[in-house]
């Protein structure tokens, strides 16, 4: 009967060690957000006394920017991805990777640099300001999120569906609207939702452009009205809205399937554009790179040269890289656990995915408050002391994970979803238990997507400001902190060098990432 005992224990999914880790990872990632929500809901504090307007105007502002900036980023990103994936035109190879560059620039840096570049006394004939200016900055800064996702979606499309459409009389031009775009919709939607969540979470640019968004409303409630509680209530609204948004996105896919019409691999046919159209396409891509990266980069470089203080920020550069690398690794481990489990168990996985995604829409400072609240509770319970260096770092990495897990889960999930279910079953019948399958099958196979996730996380954390600002240890400045310190002191010249370095430090991983994606076409190993 010994056998039966063993068997009964191992029935279903419940006691798989990998799953247990994933559940813990999910809880860890969701905890700060949950803390924020429960803190916001706690009845022993005053409600949002003045919050009505703040909430309404903030929601309106955020929605406006999601529509204008997010919509712009979506159109630009999807358009560029289409051109680069499926058309031939001069410079295509160059643009394929160059289009990713703006990913290295934080929105707040773009905003500061456009402001100093174009506002009163600046050199630009057109002022980039207000709602439209912000939308412009979001669009040119965030389109790479959509571009990456859409390019992956376009390149993994079955060439056969496109060919079938052509034999049915569809010209290359209308192919885009009738087949390629509809098929890439989930990918584009995923990219667009990332861009929109970035917009929802952005404080720096919104504040500088004088927008009223949920994010600025949070800080208005907190800083001006001195009500952290109201700030958390608005944050809770933001978090819950993000969750609803994600669920709607899933729901909108409906019954239609998008993947897999064909498993056969055949090189994607690229359509040669006529000379004038080719020039237009090249100009379009060039403008994106110009406004999203080249122009702000050049402007920052000019400012930085006016005030060269590179030596002064070298330690911050080192700190940034060390912190980003460690943060990326930790977040990556949690994200991988969640993604792997999402694949092995549908229900548990879906819940984890959503829980992990929530944090992406919240401003970092809010999640940091969530993490602080948990620490405060633990301290009051006598489990820990103050935020010593070690604890502060723990809290910091934890907050990173809470904020960015989703950015890591998404690519890993996509990578894993390309694998046949049969592989897991094969490994099991060959006697491999859950851990061995994880380590010897799932992880190596998803390695390219895991590497991509690592690079994205590295860049995200490199750019991250508010969480770092509040949770870092003493005497520990990063580039973002430096840039912020100078910028908040309105010393744009001095801020330029660290901002530029964030950009530059982010470029290397971005280029590797871009190259990796260009060569990783589903099925072509």
């Amino acid at each position, binding site marked *: 009967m010994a*056998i*039966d005992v063993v*068997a009964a224990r*191992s*029935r*279903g999914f419940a006691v798989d060690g990998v799953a247990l880790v994933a559940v813990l990872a999910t809880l860890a990632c969701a905890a700060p957000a949950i803390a924020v929500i429960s803190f916001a809901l706690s009845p022993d504090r005053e409600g949002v006394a003045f919050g009505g307007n703040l909430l309404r105007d903030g929601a309106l502002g955020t929605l406006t920017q999601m529509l204008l900036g997010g919509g712009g980023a979506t159109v630009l990103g999807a358009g560029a991805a289409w051109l680069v994936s499926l058309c031939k035109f001069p410079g295509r190879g160059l643009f394929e990777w160059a289009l990713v560059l703006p990913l290295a620039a934080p929105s707040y840096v773009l905003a500061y640099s456009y402001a100093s570049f174009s506002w009163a006394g600046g050199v630009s004939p057109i002022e980039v300001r207000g709602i439209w200016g912000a939308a412009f900055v979001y669009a040119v800064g965030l389109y790479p999120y959509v571009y990456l996702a859409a390019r992956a979606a376009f390149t993994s499309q079955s060439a056969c569906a496109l060919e079938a459409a052509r034999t049915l009389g569809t010209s290359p031009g209308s192919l885009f609207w009738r087949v390629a775009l509809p098929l890439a919709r989930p990918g584009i939607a995923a990219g667009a939702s990332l861009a929109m969540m970035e917009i929802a979470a952005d404080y720096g640019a919104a504040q500088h452009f004088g927008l009223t968004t949920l994010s600025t409303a949070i800080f208005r409630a907190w800083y001006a009205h001195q009500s952290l509680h109201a700030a958390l209530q608005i944050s809770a609204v933001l978090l819950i809205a993000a969750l609803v948004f994600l669920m709607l996105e899933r729901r909108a896919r409906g019954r239609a399937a998008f993947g897999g019409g064909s498993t056969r691999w055949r090189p994607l046919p690229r359509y040669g554009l006529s000379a004038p159209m080719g020039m237009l396409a090249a100009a379009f891509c060039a403008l994106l790179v110009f406004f999203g990266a080249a122009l702000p980069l050049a402007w920052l470089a000019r400012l930085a040269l006016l005030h060269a203080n590179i030596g002064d920020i070298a330690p911050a550069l080192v700190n940034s890289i060390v912190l980003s690398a460690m943060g990326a690794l930790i977040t990556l481990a949690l994200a991988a656990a969640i993604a792997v489990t999402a694949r092995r168990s549908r229900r548990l996985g879906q819940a984890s995915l959503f829980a992990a995604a929530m944090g992406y829409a919240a401003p970092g400072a809010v999640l940091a408050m969530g993490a602080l609240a948990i620490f405060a509770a633990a301290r009051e319970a006598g489990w820990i002391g103050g935020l010593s260096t070690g604890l502060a770092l723990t809290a910091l990495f934890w907050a990173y994970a809470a904020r960015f897990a989703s950015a890591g889960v998404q690519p890993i999930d996509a990578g894993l979803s390309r694998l046949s279910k049969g592989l897991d079953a*094969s490994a099991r*019948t*060959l006697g491999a238990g859950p851990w061995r399958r994880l380590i010897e099958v799932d992880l190596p196979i998803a*390695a390219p997507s895991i590497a991509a996730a690592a690079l994205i996380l590295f860049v995200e954390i490199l750019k991250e400001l508010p969480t770092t600002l509040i949770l870092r240890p003493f005497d520990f400045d990063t580039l973002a902190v430096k840039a912020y310190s100078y910028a908040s002191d309105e010393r744009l010249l001095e801020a330029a060098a660290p901002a530029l370095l964030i950009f530059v430090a982010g470029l290397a991983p971005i280029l590797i990432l871009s190259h990796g994606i260009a060569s990783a076409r589903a099925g072509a190993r």
Partner: protein
Amino acid sequence: MSTVTLTRVRRAYNGAWSLDDVSLTAPEGKVLALLGPSGSGKSTILRLIAGLEPLDAGEIRIGDQLASSVGVTLPPEQRRLGMVFQDYSLFPHLTAAANVGFGLDKLARAERDALALRWLDRVGLKHRADAYPHELSGGEQQRIALARSLAPQPRAVLLDEPFSGLDPVQRAELRDATLATLAEAKTTALFVTHDAEDALQVADRLAILKSGRLLQEATPREAYDRPTSIDAAAALGPINVFSGRVESGAITTPFGPVAAALPNGTAAQAAVRAEALALSPGAAARVIEVRPHGAHDLVRIEAQGAIWRALVPARSTLGESVDVTIQPAGAFAFSA
């Protein structure tokens, strides 16, 4: 090498029985073929035996060990079975040799490599040891998958349509090679196919399935010669069916009588294999079409409004009409 026994096994998906009361024995060291159309539950049987899914009723034993019963599922990794999947499911990140060695992780590194190589040799792919799956043809991949499943000396090996998706020449070659390897390894094998020819070529015993039910379990010869139902008869080749009544121990079809060991007056069905119709010059039936069909011609004949298909030796010269003889060995009657 163990006997695999299914006893009254049931499995439902979304409330519908995908397997209904199936009892089956795969005898030690023999090849049992599971034959049936798409959706008949063949893969489900393999997945249940492998422990990849729990069952809803009945039990499965591997040798003496109770592997699955209601609420109890020994995990696959503890069953010591080999499995070859329809898409081979080779690990794309491992070489051929590493794939074959995957199940040998209890052995020391050197021993494991040596054994993997020995198995690669056995399936004739020693020279491809360092190739990755995507560098191998479909047939080569299948052989790697077979070697991988056999290397850990499983108690039985489960093969899910291992030959589908190959062209007929490759298919025949691979079938022979697989059979030889299985025979050499003396492994109990369960082998899923929807191709009658495959099943007849490879199997020691045949289990014919339809809609989750076991129609017949027998030797190939027995199944061909003494089908137990219309469906079982149809599973092994084209048949002609006629519904009528038994009169004087026979059913009278438009093309001739079929003997029926049933009470007179019973509503019954006659099933006649296409190759059991012999045609000779005459006037009983009209020839509608003659098409070459490899060794045979496929002839469509019509009588009294019924159209039957006959397989006759190729190049038989037939006129516009023929007489028809039904050969009793290929004609069966079942009560309707």
